[in-house]
């Protein structure tokens, strides 16, 4: 059980070239989708509450390549990156954030509430901390089934100060649930700096109190993130119980799109933006011969086309009929 800053150590799993490229593809998808989202809001084509994930691309990309299609994730309102990395289709996602009937949730959830069970994307909650108790339940069902499936609970550093975090880690440990708690520490809980609201210098130290391994990793380093996720997920799969991963990162924008981010330290932000993990990993892939410039440009162009297609599809889709207002409050009569 270590709570030290982890880099790719001697025993750490290393993603093969194909996996590295796949991690980059997911990162690029998240980055480009985030840019498209902000552009669409700025231009007035769509109105929605939007919580940019820019800067946090590595975490779900490096985690999700370790997951199977039938593994499940829960995330929070800043969670579109988690959902895309898990495989939620762009068209369904965009239709949902546009409030259209063709969306993942028929337009009834919106950008803060993406659910797409076919991808294993079970819950996006708008309540800080609430991904964790429900991820435990998913994990409990896997354990009852006797399967080797795994649940991931994503949340931010702010959520580590809410009661649900503590109840969930304790229960997961006592029941040895196949769940991985992923704290995406982006240094700000809404507008409040990490150290102003959190009693320990590393969230991962809190794992000690719940009898589970806790590890702090560089969440902007695809190799370190991959290795930490690989170990925690395998541990859960093997029935050895939960792990708390604290992935250090930084969000490049304010809490919600349009907020004045004056509360963020300009120098700190500039330093993180300077180390933007997406172009950094791109350069590394080229440098190490994993991919060529042409190959990555083609991949990015393909993503851009997919996003544009998804936006067009969404905006061309119908709004839900008014009957949807009262449908799905309860199961249809006769359902069981």
């Amino acid at each position, binding site marked *: 059980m270590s709570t030290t800053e982890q880099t790719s150590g001697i025993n750490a799993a290393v993603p093969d070239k194909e996996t590295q490229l796949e991690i980059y593809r997911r990162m690029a998808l998240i980055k480009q989708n985030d840019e498209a989202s902000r552009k669409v809001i700025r231009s007035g084509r769509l109105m929605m509450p939007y919580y940019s994930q820019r800067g946090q691309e590595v975490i779900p990309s490096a985690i999700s390549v370790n997951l199977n299609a039938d593994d*499940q994730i829960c995330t929070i309102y800043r969670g579109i990156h988690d959902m895309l990395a898990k495989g939620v289709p762009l068209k369904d996602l965009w239709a949902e954030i546009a409030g259209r009937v063709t*969306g*993942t*949730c*028929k*337009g*009834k*959830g919106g950008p803060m*509430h993406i*659910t*797409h*069970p076919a991808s294993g994307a*079970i*819950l996006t*909650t*708008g*309540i800080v901390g*609430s991904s*964790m*108790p*429900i*991820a*435990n*339940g*998913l*994990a*409990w*069902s*896997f*354990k*009852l*089934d006797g399967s080797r499936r795994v*649940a991931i609970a994503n949340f931010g550093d702010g959520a580590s100060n809410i*009661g*649900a975090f503590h*109840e*969930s880690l*304790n*229960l997961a440990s*006592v*029941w040895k649930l196949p769940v991985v708690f992923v704290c995406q520490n982006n240094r700000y809980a809404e507008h409040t700096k990490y150290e102003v609201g959190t009693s320990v210098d590393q969230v991962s130290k809190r794992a000690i109190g719940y009898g589970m391994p806790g590890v702090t990793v560089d969440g902007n380093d695809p190799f370190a993130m991959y290795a930490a996720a690989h170990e925690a997920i395998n541990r859960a799969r093997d029935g050895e119980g939960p792990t708390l991963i604290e992935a250090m990162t930084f969000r490049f924008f304010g809490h919600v799109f349009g907020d004045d981010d004056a509360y963020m330290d300009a120098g700190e932000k500039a330093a993180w933006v300077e180390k933007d993990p997406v172009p950094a990993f791109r350069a590394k892939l080229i440098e190490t011969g994993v991919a060529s410039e042409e190959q990555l440009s083609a991949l990015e162009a393909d993503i851009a086309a997919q996003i544009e297609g998804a936006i067009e599809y969404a905006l061309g889709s119908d709004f839900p009929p008014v009957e*949807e207002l009262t*449908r*799905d*409050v*309860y*199961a249809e009569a006769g*359902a*069981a």
Partner: protein
Amino acid sequence: MTAETKKLNIIQAINEAIAEAMEANPKVVVLGEDVADKEGGGVVGVTRGLSTRFGDDRVRSTPISEQAIVGAAIGAAINGYRPVAEIMLMNFTTVAMDMIVNHAAKLRFMSGGQTGVPIVIRMMTGAGIASAGQHSDFLEAWFAHTPGLKVVAPSTPEDAKGLMLSAIADPDPVIFIECSRAYGTTAPVPVDLKPIPLGKAKVVREGSDVTIVSYSEIVVRALAAAAELEKEGVSAEVIDLRTINPWDRETVFASVRKTGRLVVAHEAVKEFGVGAEIAATVQEELFSALKAAIKRVGAPFTSVPFSRPLEEAFIVQPGQIADAARATLKTN
């Protein structure tokens, strides 16, 4: 022809219902504080014997962590299980309200019908056992006011068993309220009792002059009020709602059409309560059938007190229900 029966109290009746459901469906699981036999099979023994019979995997005692309990139930339910979660006392739901209201109740709607949450959250409550303000509240109106939840509150062993069977089989989250004062109530229950559908009230006493609608243990008091009124030549019809949401409008409306007078009695404080909802609906839909203003009977707008005389004064008494019925007869 009389069906074979056996005498059960409400604790035993609910226990039998859960056991039968677990026997019939391996996806039915139980969780909550102290629910396994090593911990006594529940604080009053509702789940006694279940972990021994069905194993510790399916009947799990939990830490004192209500959010974690309801969250675990929700997650397992989304993946096809049928969790029966015990929240020891209704007041303790207050620390799990995010899980109940924001998640269990809403996930079906917010996911466009993809993630249903078929859980039962059982709890006991009720004044009269000297437990004061944080262990006694009837908070059913909060849950009945929340779209997505169903709310059930039986008054007899037969109903407790039959409604629990339906609650476990129901595709939606059900808040199942057990009155601690009524746990010891014993009555014959048919051995082959079938599930009693949710949303169906029961006319427990027929009458023609005034309708008294109630639920949970207050039904017993409504029946006592009806007996008192009978001596005065007043014929009161008593309806046990059994399910608070969805409530059985048809049965209540049919009765009010007949009697023209309505009293709604419940243990919770009167203000903003279930009685207000029923009274408002009846006057909206059946105004012309009414011969008198509808009366509500509930607790005074205060916290449940400890001291015995105060606690006695808090709980709705048969005399108050009878007085309300008399008032409807005096009007006009």
